[in-house]
């Protein structure tokens, strides 16, 4: 009897608590969100703030010690030194090239997986697109190093045509990054194409449009937000990468590896460089927001 009574009492407390929380939705929300919000603000935004602040410090050029004196020298140097300008522009160029290549390759692939392939094969094809993501990033990049190395697969395959592989360098970097991030572009486009109502295509044909016209006037504009959504992944992932370029990039310098090589010698300079991709990506996101990409993520 007492056990039953105790259980009932225990339940009563829980019930009262649940009831109290139910009547105070704000308190409930606060309890739910405090921990993740702390994580986000302190660790994530906090470290970003530290990065930004330290970009305004300088170093003692003899000892490489950080000198906490407020100055804009780093940014000044960044914008006036031709090498840094080149590296920044090259990095943005690589990110854009990877994004465009991904979009161009992903569209027909997604069109096939979403609308041409037999419906029963479609889930399998999606899995096939995703499988490369299961393998380690490093393994894939080293695989590409093997493919692109002298006398490697690329050389061997292009030899009959009197050409050679691209070797290590900027093209190899773009190629490898395109391979790495392609699934992130295919998936949103696949989803958008799959959800495209068939009767919109019927309606377009009904009003006199041939297939190409329907593709241009109906399919592409309706899928474009998803291309933009995919491009957010490919662009930002490419802009932040510094390992791929080290492995297959030869002597190519991108923001990522310049930051990496500066960390030991000149931390404030590395921080200043590090803010560049953050700013670029914020600008890119603002541009993409206009296309409606953020709502199709």
């Amino acid at each position, binding site marked *: 009897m007492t056990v039953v009574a105790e259980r009932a009492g225990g339940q009563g407390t829980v019930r009262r608590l649940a009831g109290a929380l139910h009547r105070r939705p704000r308190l409930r929300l606060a309890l739910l969100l405090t921990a993740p919000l702390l994580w986000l603000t302190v660790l994530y935004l906090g470290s970003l703030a530290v990065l930004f602040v330290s970009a305004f410090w300088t170093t003692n050029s003899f000892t490489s010690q950080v000198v906490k004196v407020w100055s804009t020298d780093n940014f000044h140097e960044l914008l006036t030194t031709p090498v840094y300008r080149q590296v920044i522009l090259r990095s943005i160029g690589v990110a854009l090239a990877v994004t465009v290549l991904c979009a161009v390759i992903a569209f027909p692939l997604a069109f096939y997986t979403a609308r041409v392939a037999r419906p029963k094969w479609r889930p399998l094809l999606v899995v096939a697109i995703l499988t490369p993501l299961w393998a380690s990033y490093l393994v894939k990049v080293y695989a590409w190093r093997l493919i692109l190395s002298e006398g490697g697969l690329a050389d061997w395959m292009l030899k009959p045509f009197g050409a050679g592989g691209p070797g290590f360098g900027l093209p190899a970097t773009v190629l490898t990054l395109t391979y790495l991030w392609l699934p992130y572009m295919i998936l949103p486009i696949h989803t958008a194409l799959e959800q495209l*109502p068939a*009767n*919109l295509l*019927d*309606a*377009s*044909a*009904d*009003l*006199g*449009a*041939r297939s190409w*016209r329907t593709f241009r*006037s*109906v399919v592409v*504009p*309706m899928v474009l937000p998803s291309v933009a959504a995919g491009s957010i992944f490919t662009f930002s992932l490419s802009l932040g990468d510094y390992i791929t370029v080290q492995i297959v990039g030869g002597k190519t310098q991108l923001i990522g590896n310049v930051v990496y090589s500066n960390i030991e010698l000149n931390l404030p300079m590395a921080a200043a460089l590090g803010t560049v991709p953050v700013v670029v990506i914020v600008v890119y996101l603002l541009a993409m927001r206009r296309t409606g990409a953020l709502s199709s993520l």
Partner: protein
Amino acid sequence: MEGIAIRLQDLRKSFGETTAVAGVDLEIRDGEFFSMLGPSGSGKTTVLRLIAGFETPTAGGIELAGQEVTGLAPFERDVHTVFQDYALFPHMTVEQNVAYGLKIRKVPKAERLVRARKALAEVRLEGFGARRPAQLSGGQRQRVALARALVGRPRVLLLDEPLGALDLKLREQMQVELKELQREVGITFVFVTHDQQEALTMSDRIAVFDQGRIQQVGTPAEIYERPATPFVASFVGTSNLIEGESAQRVVGAPGVYSIRPEKIRVLKESAESDEPEHATATGTVAEVVYLGDTTRFLVDLDAGGRLTALQQNLETSAEDVAAYRGTRVRLQWHHRHTVRVPDTR
């Protein structure tokens, strides 16, 4: 003599094992409001899609205005379609949607705008051109779809249950407007519906479909008053058939007969039927359904079978008619309303 807008010859369509259209022959005249009526799965929508060119027939031929179009793509046919769920392009404004077909046909921009505005005015949507389809109500989207299909002045307009998604009041209003619009523009309308009331209200002629075949083609009055098969008699209007033994006893001959409920008068059993041109049958009222303007009596006949009779509530009210439940009555109707239905079952 008016021309033939659409001619279907032994049209057939199968999807794998299922036969959607099992041999349809049909002629639709120029300028006609023609309805294809039938339950879902009867093949009416497939016939419409075959005419539009979205499906290719398994066998048979389609002619549009005397020209063979069976193998042609939708964009090669002078027909436009109003889709059941409108199929408006969400990324275009209302005006761009309406002008889409004109743009494809390379109509100059200025003329395009003028014609799109005029088409929107025809469906009473002036001033909505700059909106997106998502900002419109269901009824307004319906009108945009109509304007988009009409602006190119096709030879034939195909409408696939266009009023199905609207609520009753709006639907009744649109029925009247559609009919008016069709008279104004003079284009042949082919209207697919499962709603017999809608088909009867709007059509010049109706084809009743069942199981991939046409059961009957005729004017609303012909379809309603002279159903050609038991299916038509029961699908259009209230099913009111007497057959077999009870037909022998009531009508005096075997067969299947249809008597429309509103033609039958409900009298007291004692009332003498002295008029020789009237048929009569006695029975017991099994159920009384008060409908406001009318009352529906379900009467079990002494001769077997059940008939429904519909009476205007001229002087009676809900309580008066309720008193009829379980009483003995005499049903009476004019002989000419006993319609023999060829038994095709």
